[in-house]
């Protein structure tokens, strides 16, 4: 039950487990309950089974080769079942569009059931920008097959009551169907508004903390005073005297359940616990500590990429550079904290919880309570964001433990301080770059070492003959895991700031320097699109103002940003304008894509400028919004988004990559304004309460 298991949350993107079993699919039994209509099941090709479906599949309600399925009822209502979930990235709308496009049905006729482990097919999780490239094609396939079973003509003219009356017509489809090319799209490629926006603006949508069950109690969990602390003793007598209070003490887990949140807080407050903990490190020595790499479990470095010889390249270089970059720990701080409502019915458990991995949480619950997976049902209401921070099921397990003891349903909503302390963080890191450029401005050597922050986006698209690129896992002090864009932000920060350093050393204008070292046409196109809209090279900066540019590629999409920053001595830099271009293949929903790009820019400002988790000896020192600064209205610069629609290319996901160029573009603009090179995220140097200077270069 210790929520701080250092092995629990590696880079989940790299988690790839194939299914252990393939069972025959007994379709009649499963779909009989629907009464009538048409069911189309989209099967996954075996090779892809581990990505979208797949997993271990033991005791699942549904066979694991199913990617998604849809049901057209005798009234013409369409219900689509997918294991993907909605956390603000707008999957509910884009997936509805995919079905509407192929079925020819209006968007309003389609309802999505998402992330319910009993009714939707297994899905590894909603992360890694995989919903658009994987689930959109699966649903289009199913919808297109369903359309073929219906009479021709407009949707409104179909008499659904005549179709498969009183029985369910089931059809399975695997690969092979040919979806409509993007230049013939009528619903995909258009700005369909968020399908459940009205429930949100009226306050009717029920997030997990809004779920209420009859006789439900409210839970709280006693947290250790430090990370890794062991419980030495507990006196719960005062709490147990409060009427209606249940106290649970099970190993390291201590929690209470009571009839109101107030009573639960009161009971928690009178628990007397003694903890014992070992001394732990602090933010002060973080970047030194992270450079002590460890071998991974199989004794090898996680990733290394070598081409030519860096030493030979450096020997022939006219200018050589060696730089070190640092990236602080930051928190996701989703506005909806972790929450769960758990209900037991005998040996069967049902949990509503906000998670990006409902099936992962189902497995966690099955393990924690020693029950078969089919006895644990997880439902995921559309959730108040995740940003990669909600892959785990802590609140679900805690609520279920309390509910088991109390014999009643229990709701548990983490406090903001718990969310800032007991969730996990975006990994901090140190990045060392060594490079050389020849007299003509061609990069001859590139050596890049990332310590701890991760391997996403670590490879360079610049055309460099001699390269050595490696990720080194480290022993790390805080629980860490996925975050929007993951390490691609850190790696792009180091790479794109260092590219600017090389351009300066070579005496070449930064955009031209990048183009000179690039062959990738899609990369060039986003750089030129951002530069063109920004007026790069055409405008003269006012006094104290600098312009910066950065570009990148990750998860199938390309991005470039230009920043305009005003710097005044003794004051934090002020971001005046950001122009960002983005290309992710054929655009699924232009306005919602723009929304994601704008949001990535704004969220990216926090990590770029001021977000940093401060910690010392097993405690988070800034676990509140009053101490942990996130972007607010007044931080937002003038933002312009340029979308490049490549109808000839498959659609890639777009929720993450637009964040990666924000920090380097700003850092490069600060250099152009002041001549000062900043190599630390966050860029604004700040003295922490424990004397550590987050944001300072090492």
């Amino acid at each position, binding site marked *: 039950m210790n929520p701080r298991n250092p092995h629990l949350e590696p880079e989940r993107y790299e988690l790839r487990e194939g299914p252990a079993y393939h069972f025959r699919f007994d379709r009649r039994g499963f779909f009989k309950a629907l009464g009538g209509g048409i069911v189309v099941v989209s099967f996954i090709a075996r090779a892809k089974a581990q990505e979208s479906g797949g997993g271990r599949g033991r005791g699942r309600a549904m066979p694991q080769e199913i990617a998604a399925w849809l049901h057209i009822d005798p009234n013409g209502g369409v219900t689509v079942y997918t294991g993907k979930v909605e956390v603000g990235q707008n999957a509910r709308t884009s997936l509805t569009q995919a079905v509407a496009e192929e079925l020819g049905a209006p968007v309003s006729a389609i309802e999505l059931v998402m992330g319910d482990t009993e009714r939707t097919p297994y899905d590894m999780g909603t992360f890694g920008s995989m919903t658009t490239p994987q689930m959109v094609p699966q649903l289009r396939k199913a919808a297109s097959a369903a359309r073929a079973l219906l009479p021709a003509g407009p949707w409104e003219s179909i008499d659904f009551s005549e179709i498969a009356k009183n029985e369910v017509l089931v059809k399975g489809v695997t690969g092979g169907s040919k979806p409509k090319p993007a230049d013939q799209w009528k619903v995909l490629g258009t700005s369909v508004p968020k399908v459940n*926006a009205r429930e949100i603006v009226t306050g009717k949508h029920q997030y997990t903390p809004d779920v209420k069950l009859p006789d439900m109690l409210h839970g709280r969990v006693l947290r250790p005073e430090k990370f890794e602390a062991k419980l030495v003793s507990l006196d719960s007598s005062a709490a147990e005297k409060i009427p209606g209070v249940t106290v649970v003490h099970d190993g390291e887990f201590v929690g209470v359940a009571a009839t109101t949140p107030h009573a639960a807080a009161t009971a928690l407050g009178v628990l007397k616990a003694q903890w014992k903990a070992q001394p732990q490190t602090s933010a002060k020595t973080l970047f030194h500590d992270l450079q002590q790499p460890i071998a991974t479990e199989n004794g090898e470095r996680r990733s290394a990429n070598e081409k030519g010889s860096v030493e030979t390249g450096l020997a022939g270089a006219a200018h050589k550079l060696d730089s070190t970059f640092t990236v602080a720990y930051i928190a996701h701080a989703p506005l909806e904290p972790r929450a769960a409502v758990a209900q037991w019915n005998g040996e069967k458990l049902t949990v509503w919880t906000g998670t990006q991995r409902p099936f992962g949480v189902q497995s966690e619950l099955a393990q924690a309570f020693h029950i078969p997976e089919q006895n644990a049902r997880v439902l995921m209401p559309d959730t108040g*964001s995740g940003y990669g921070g909600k892959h785990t099921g802590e609140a679900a397990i805690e609520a279920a433990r309390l509910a088991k003891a109390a014999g009643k349903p229990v709701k548990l909503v983490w406090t903001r301080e718990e969310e800032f302390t007991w969730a996990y963080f975006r990994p901090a890191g140190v990045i060392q770059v060594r490079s050389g450029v020849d007299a003509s401005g061609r990069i001859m050597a590139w050596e890049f070492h990332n310590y701890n922050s991760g391997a996403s986006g670590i490879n360079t698209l610049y055309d460099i003959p001699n390269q050595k690129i490696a990720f080194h896992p480290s022993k790390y002090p805080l629980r860490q895991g996925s975050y929007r864009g993951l390490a691609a932000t850190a790696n792009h920060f180091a790479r794109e700031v260092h590219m600017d350093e090389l351009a300066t050393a070579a005496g070449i204008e930064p955009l031209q320097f990048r183009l000179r070292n690039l062959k990738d046409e899609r990369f060039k196109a986003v750089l030129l699109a951002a530069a063109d809209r920004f007026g790069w090279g055409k405008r003269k900066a006012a006094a104290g103002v600098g312009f910066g540019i950065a570009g990148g590629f990750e998860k199938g999409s390309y991005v470039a940003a230009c920043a305009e920053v005003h710097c005044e001595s003794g004051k934090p830099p002020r971001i005046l304008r950001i122009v960002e271009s983005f290309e992710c293949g054929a655009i699924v929903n232009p306005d919602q894509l723009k929304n994601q790009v704008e949001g990535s820019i704004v969220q990216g400002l926090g990590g770029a400028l001021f977000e940093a988790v401060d910690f010392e000896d097993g405690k988070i020192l800034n676990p509140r919004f009053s101490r942990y600064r996130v972007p607010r209205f007044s931080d937002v610069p003038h933002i312009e988004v340029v979308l490049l629609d490549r109808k000839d290319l498959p659609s890639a996901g777009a929720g993450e990559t637009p964040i990666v160029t924000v920090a380097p573009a700003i850092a490069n603009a600060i250099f152009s304004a002041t001549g000062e090179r900043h190599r630390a995220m966050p860029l604004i140097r700040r003295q922490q309460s424990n004397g550590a200077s987050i944001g300072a270069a090492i």
Partner: protein
Amino acid sequence: MPRIFELVVNGVRHSVDAEPARTLLTVLRDELDLTGTKYGCGEGQCGACTVMIDGIATRSCQTGAAAAAGKRITTIEGLEQHGKLHPVQAAFLEADAMQCGYCTAGMIVAGAALLEKNANPSEAEIAEAMQGNMCRCGTYPRIVAAIMAASRMMKRNAA
């Protein structure tokens, strides 16, 4: 303070039996089932819990429930009138000024309260008035645009 007190929420009188120390936020959510108002931080920093008390945008997580007795409380559920959305709600829909939507209720109530005070705010005035409302998805530019649009809508309706 009495344990039983009366709250007037969205024009409806409720007799509430709750510990006097309870915040207005938990009474709205857990006793009156008005869950549109959200918990985000519990220290008045994020604005997800914003309600109007006598027309003023107020952090319900920082307000004692009993202290709000007898005052006019408006929550997100009270803005829609006879099936017609408040102009700020309509403008949020029109501008798609949300992603995950968890901050939206607080944003809309804060925006509606701002327009009651200042029917014609500039972008800078909106940013200043809304500085205490957080959107972690970063939809601030759309929220500003939505409140500007709502202001225009209300002027047209009044004309």
